[in-house]
């Protein structure tokens, strides 16, 4: 019971603006929640039946009054709405230069993999002063990734990706909670977020460590690969791309049965029915697990489904690989 905070720390760039909005609302509430009861108390005392006061000329309705107390609250709530809305859009728009980290939630742990292949469980190491974008999915039920001191939270769903971003401002350790009820050990699905200065973060990334993978097997962080070209997550993805036979159809020279995947990520894809889809993580995932659902224009629906053949973990590596092809194309 040593420390007894009444207000959470402000450790990300969102914390300040969210708290300002919060205190504004508290202030507004004090006007209504504080003054209104005061008026009521006053009326209760003044017009108590024991008080001899003037009770003649009672009023039973008044349009001007009704309009006043309709319009004023309306204006107030709309003001805070727009304020909150812009902040919200900001909180949902990750900058392009964000550091991408993959998160998998499962009953009842968090599994994180950094671009260089380093993994960790129930911990998240991040650099400060740098936007971080989490690409998250779940292996089983819905979870929710919550860092109170950053004022961010996002549900993590099975079967698709959700995205969350933030920029930490203070080095330190923060609570990491699972905020969506997910079964027996929901309240034990907690961990910590370690915000480090960039240099410390890079040193940490390069430190080898052993970690249990979501499927129960042991996987090491692969510092040896850091020297190789590109990040190990991409490399691992590239190996999968070859071993699963993708490369046979998706050839980089564009002569395969399937489309060349370079430059695909974050582009608009034309489908056979003429519509356009945005090739984000969810589209890539769908194309691999359920290729028949959306067929790229000019190609036949011949790609087999890889449902059940790639784990969430491998899926993340494949995505990292396909995205790296996108980068290569831009350069």
């Amino acid at each position, binding site marked *: 019971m040593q420390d007894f905070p009444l207000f959470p720390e402000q450790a990300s760039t969102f914390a300040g603006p969210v708290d300002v909005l919060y205190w504004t609302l508290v202030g507004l509430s004090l006007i209504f929640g504080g003054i209104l009861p005061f008026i009521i108390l006053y009326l209760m005392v003044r017009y108590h039946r024991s008080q001899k006061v003037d009770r003649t000329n009672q009023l039973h309705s008044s349009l001007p009054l009704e309009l006043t107390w309709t319009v004023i609250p309306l204006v107030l709530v709309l003001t805070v709405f727009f304020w909150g809305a812009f902040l919200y859009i900001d909180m*949902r728009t990750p900058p392009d230069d964000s550091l991408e980290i993959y998160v998998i939630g499962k009953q009842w742990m968090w599994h994180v993999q950094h671009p260089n292949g380093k993994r960790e469980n129930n911990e998240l190491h991040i650099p400060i002063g740098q936007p971080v974008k989490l690409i998250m999915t779940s292996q089983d039920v819905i979870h929710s990734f919550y860092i109170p001191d950053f004022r961010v939270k996002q549900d993590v769903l099975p*079967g698709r990706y959700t995205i969350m971003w933030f920029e930490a401002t203070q080095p330190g350790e923060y609570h990491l909670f699972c905020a969506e009820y997910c079964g027996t050990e929901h309240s034990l699905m907690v961990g910590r977020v370690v915000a480090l200065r960039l240099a410390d973060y890079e040193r940490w990334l390069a430190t080898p460590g052993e970690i249990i993978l979501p499927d129960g097997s042991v996987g090491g962080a692969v510092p040896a690969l850091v020297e190789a070209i590109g990040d190990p997550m991409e490399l691992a993805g590239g190996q999968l791309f070859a071993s699963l036979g993708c490369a046979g159809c998706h050839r980089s020279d564009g002569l395969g049965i399937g489309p060349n995947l370079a430059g695909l990520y974050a582009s608009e894809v034309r489908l056979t*029915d003429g519509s356009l889809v*945005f*090739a984000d993580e*969810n*589209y890539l995932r769908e194309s691999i697990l359920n290729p028949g659902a959306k067929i790229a224009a000019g190609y036949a629906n011949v790609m087999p489904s890889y449902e059940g053949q790639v784990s969430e973990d491998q899926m993340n590596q494949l995505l990292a690989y396909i995205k790296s092809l996108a980068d290569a194309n831009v350069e």
Partner: protein
Amino acid sequence: MAHHEHEHERGHIGPATYYKVFAALMVLMFLTVGAWWVEGMLNIPRALGVFIAVAIASTKTVLIVLFFMHIKVSSRVTQLYAVAALVALLFMFVITMGDYFARGWPPELGPLP
């Protein structure tokens, strides 16, 4: 007082109308199957096909509700309740589908897997 709502003598719908409505329903039924059959050969946009099918089904419903179910000659309250469900369903469909349509907005999530 509620009584005035039913004090006027109800209008009457007789067998002659029923037969006419039934004939219309049959025509619409063959129209909907026919439209489907024709669409199979024409390759028109999917949305149009759905629109036609739902439009025909709605027309049939309106006919049944108005005549078979006597809404045309029912009290105003009953008429209001007959459309109430429609309004509530509309809320549900428009808003929920709105969410699904909008989910593709980058950087939010793409279409459903």
